[in-house]
């Protein structure tokens, strides 16, 4: 699959590398300027730039991607990127990261989000589950 991952160090990079190692065609839009692009070292295709600019998304292959993962540390960026991915580029699967659970209710189809990844909510439900069991 052709996958675009957007974000910087940590989770976005780890996700991109894991998908790349599994044999997917992965491009990462690195949103952390001024550092050595670690993704390139790992053999990943890396694009630099502002993901809220259409030419950046297109340079990363938005016109032919199957999956886009909006994984920056800023929820409003993830929402706007998801909207563009789904409504403008018609990308089949759009997954977005929720950083602040207070914004989680926004992450739905109206923003083009097919599935959300909310580490805080996931942890909380895991804790509830574990402590009940």
């Amino acid at each position: 699959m052709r996958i675009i991952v957007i974000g910087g160090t940590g989770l976005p990079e780890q996700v991109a590398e894991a998908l790349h190692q599994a044999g997917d065609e992965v491009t990462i839009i690195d949103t952390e300027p001024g550092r050595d692009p670690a993704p390139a070292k790992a053999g990943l295709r890396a694009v630099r730039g502002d993901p809220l600019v259409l030419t950046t998304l297109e340079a990363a292959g938005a016109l032919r991607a199957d999956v886009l993962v909006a994984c920056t540390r800023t929820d409003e960026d993830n929402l706007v990127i998801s909207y563009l991915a789904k409504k403008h580029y018609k990308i089949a699967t759009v997954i977005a990261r929720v950083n602040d659970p207070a914004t989680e209710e926004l992450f739905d189809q109206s923003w083009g989000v097919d599935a959300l990844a909310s580490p805080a909510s996931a942890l909380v439900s895991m804790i509830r589950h574990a402590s009940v069991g």
Partner: protein
Amino acid sequence: MQAVIMGCGRTGAALAARFDAEGDQVTILDPDDAAQRRLSTGFRGRFLTGNGVIPAILLAADIARAEAFVALTPNDSANIVAAKAARDTYRVPRVIARLHDPVHAEVYSKLGIVTVASVPATVNRIAQLLYHEALEPQHTFGNGETLLVRSAVPAYLAGRPVSEFDVPGEIRVAELSRAGHSSIPEPSTALQDGDALSFVVASGSLGRLKSFLGGKWS
């Protein structure tokens, strides 16, 4: 009118003061509690600490009853997210957002959000003052991308048809004033000494219009 402003910077605080002076009820939001120091003394509106991207904060600002929402933060994606929520979820009839970085103009337009862009508006106005002072605009549209300008027709153009001024996408003759009478001319109307014309012109084409009118290049 009830209005909600997101972002209590210099523009937000000044707009809040304006709404307040007009007798409107204002709620202004800012994640930084200290931002309320920018509000003028005697401000009758409400200051709320919080980020308007968060639905609970917009609800606390009574967004569902607002008739206007203005997003003025320096973060374009926050302005977009809050403006879309105000328009689509809370049905606020008038929604306006500041476009902070001009590179994001295309994204705002994909979402159909009305923007006020201070950078292009300032650049267009300064360029107009520096390069084309003789063509003082009667009216500017949008963020100064197009203007309505008026000029006397130089004598040496007498007898030439109005259509000679029309450049598709750049310059269009909107009106002809002759002997105190105004009309919308035919393309073939011949100009006379003493005529005045109104043009709708793209800001980047002011130089071209000036050269048509025989103005000197500065």
